[in-house]
């Protein structure tokens, strides 16, 4: 446990010292919220901000989480990983700390968006609802960063990994239910959106917004996340024999 918190501390300090990175990670989702949420002349929902905010939240976690693999990759390229692996700290704590750090960092970004959304006219929710939103975002963050780390461990060089993240992020976002309801989508898009893991998290957050508790989606998300984490652990152990 000491290992996990120390590794998280290290990544956190490194992140906040890299100021451009901090600013860009906060500006990008805010820009989406403002430009898409306020500027698009949308007529299919009452309060489009309420509709778009869950989409932007999940997109933020996605972009933050998908690049998480590069953290472990750079530790490996720069020689840190070998140092850490030669220490008595349980090796898995390296992997766990990366996944947790990325998820927590995603939640910090999500908080900024939630505040901004309310400031520009989204409906305020009650504390329980916010708690559920955070739970869903956290599970989704763990899911994405574990997935990304697994891919990074396989790909082994940074250029391929950057190409992979670029290829995955935008298509996933545009084929999800982030921007429009299923009823407004063409049939082909609706079919894709229904199986897109992003829509899954977005729809769950929208359910929370309407006042219901999406027990089944949360449980399913929990199962998917557990599967990917176990997979990441397996690949990590294989790569670090």
């Amino acid at each position: 446990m000491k290992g996990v918190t120390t590794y998280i501390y290290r990544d956190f300090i490194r992140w906040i010292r890299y100021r451009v990175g901090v600013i860009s990670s906060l500006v990008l989702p805010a820009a989406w919220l403002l430009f898409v949420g306020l500027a698009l002349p949308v007529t299919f929902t009452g309060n489009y901000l309420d509709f778009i905010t869950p989409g932007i939240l999940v997109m933020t976690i996605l972009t933050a989480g998908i690049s998480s693999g590069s953290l472990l990759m750079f530790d490996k390229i720069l020689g840190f990983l070998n140092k850490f692996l030669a220490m008595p700290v349980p090796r898995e704590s390296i992997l766990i700390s990366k996944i947790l750090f990325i998820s927590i960092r995603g939640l910090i970004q999500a908080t900024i968006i939630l505040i901004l959304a309310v400031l520009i006219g989204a409906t305020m929710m009650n504390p329980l609802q916010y708690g559920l939103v955070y739970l869903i975002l956290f599970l989704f963050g763990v899911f994405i960063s574990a997935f990304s780390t697994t891919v990074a461990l396989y790909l082994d060089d940074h250029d391929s990994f950057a190409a992979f993240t670029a290829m995955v992020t935008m298509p996933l976002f545009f084929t999800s239910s982030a921007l429009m309801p299923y009823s407004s989508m063409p049939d082909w898009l609706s079919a894709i959106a229904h199986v897109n893991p992003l829509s899954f998290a977005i729809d769950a957050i929208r359910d929370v917004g309407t006042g219901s508790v999406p027990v089944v989606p949360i449980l399913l998300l929990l199962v998917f996340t557990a599967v990917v984490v176990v997979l990441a652990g397996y690949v990590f152990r294989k790569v670090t024999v």
Partner: protein
Amino acid sequence: MTAILTEGLTKNFGELCAVNGLDLSIDKEIFGLLGPNGSGKTTSVLMLTTLLTQTKGSASICGHDTRLEPEKVRDCISYVPQDMAVDTNLTGRENMLIFAWLYGIPNPKDKVDELLAVMELSDRADDLAKTYSGGMRRRLELAEALVHEPEVIFLDEPTIGLDVAARRNIWTHIKKMTKKGMTIFMTTHYMDEADQYCDRVGIISRGKIAALGSPSVLKAHLMKDVITVTIEGDYSPVQLDGTVFVGQSDDAISFTVENGREALPLLADVLKQAGNRVKAMSLREPSLDDVFLQSVGKQEEPKGFEEFKFHMMLHHRGH
């Protein structure tokens, strides 16, 4: 108990045998593993530090088998790879504290202060490591490696890329560590450093130990004097009683002889007769370079290194 003990330690990467039957027994000394690129130095270190599993044979550190009790091995070693892995956006003190916390030592702050002082980094401890010189970064890494008072320290090319003053400084610190009873296992390319500072060296070539012993003993195995001949064009081999061919690196050919002064003119004649165009000849005492040249033979081409890296890469991809 012997600090490092290996028996027939072997590592294959597919067809390539990177390390072939390593038998070593190292205790409370500075041991230098020397060898050309791709000869198996780093692979040996990775196996001893539990970062790589051997194909055959066994290794134990402080009595703990590297395969059966890797956690106990990691408890009593430190490993400093050659990459200079220091978090440059953290201060020296922060870098150190992370290691102190990871090792879970009591009073991390005091220990960090103490080691920063030992490594002469106290006055710069709160500056970001990116403002440090290469020598300071290396000393910071050594300080990190000492945090849990390990019994064995593995150093991969500890002085690579440093200037002369920084190299000497690093060596002074390494010497100090052995005085406290630590065992240092290091790899290096610098023969002069190994000659000067290592208690014993092992010369590894194509995965096998080609020479093992203290630098002075190894040098004594060669004859008294070394004659180095610089030639133009290809070398046509010559035979002369009392001289032994050591090896060739680039256009310099070395021989050992019992009495250099007498052999010098004779050798010059024989070389000329064989059709060699001699540019210069020099006479000197044997150095570790000569031992290295004799054990390893002609320096391997860089190609061998790429191939080795390629195999390592395949391995890491899990093929």
